[in-house]
């Protein structure tokens, strides 16, 4: 029994012959002529800017609409809560004393301990 080529084999001439018989196909002259005609009449190629412009236009509009929506939402929220926004977040307690404290009771307590 003969071995077949390994994974790293060179092109196999017998397989190549079989493939050549199959891939010879009909005359390619007509095809090459038709392809040549097509290539001589190539359409104008879109420039990168044209491609970018067709891509960008709808996306710019969508981005502008999204930004407008977000801005509107922020303004609406600000308008809904004007009182809360104006209140300071730190609470300050002010204790007013109608008269100064009397020191005598304190002094008496300290002296009694002695």
């Amino acid at each position, binding site marked *: 029994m*003969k*071995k*077949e*080529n*390994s*994974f*790293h*084999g060179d*092109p*196999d001439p*017998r*397989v*190549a*012959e*079989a*493939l*050549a*018989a*199959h*891939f*010879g*196909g*009909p*005359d*390619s002259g007509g*095809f*090459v002529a*038709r*392809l*040549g005609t*097509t*290539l*001589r009449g*190539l*359409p104008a*190629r*879109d420039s*990168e800017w044209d491609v970018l412009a067709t891509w960008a236009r709808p996306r710019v509009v969508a981005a502008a609409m999204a930004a407008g929506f977000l801005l509107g939402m922020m303004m609406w929220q600000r308008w809904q809560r004007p009182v809360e926004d104006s209140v300071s977040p730190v609470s300050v307690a002010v204790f007013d004393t109608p008269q100064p404290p009397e020191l005598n009771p304190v002094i008496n307590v300290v002296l009694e301990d002695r």
Partner: protein
Amino acid sequence: MRNTDVPANRWGRAAQEGDAEAFGRLVLADAGTARRVAYAVVGNWDEAEDVVQDAALAAWQAIARFDANRPFRPWFLRIVANAALDQVRRRRVRHTEPLPEALEAPGISPERWTDQVLLSERVAAALAKLAERQRVAVMLFDLEGYSHAEIATILGVPEGTVRSYVFHARRALRQSLGSLVEEPT
């Protein structure tokens, strides 16, 4: 079969800058291989030629993305292979079968022609059992003389996968061909 005389880099740069004539030269230099790659996938010469025409137009529109420091051929053949694979996918969606090719006798003896037709039919039957990428891989490797690395670039798969494609395709071909093609020593 490979055309190595094409000053591909010069034409590639010119084509990338919008030179349609340079682009046409590059495509025509690889037209035969492109046609066989497409045929390996779609299995019909008329359809294969349409695929190459469409691929050439697609390549022209995408030429700005071509890296002129690299060879044009693998880039173009990849577009052809992808276009052919898309064509097969569309055909599968439509649930139609490829039409058998009508073979025309070239100017050779009837005996030789009969042998070639028989061989071609055996090869066609063997190739029909393979995946599209396996057919392209074995055709490019054994018929066109491309390296595994080049085929990997064209098919967009790892080199090891290409080796596997070629190995299994060869094995299937040899089994199907039987006595028509002798086993290698």
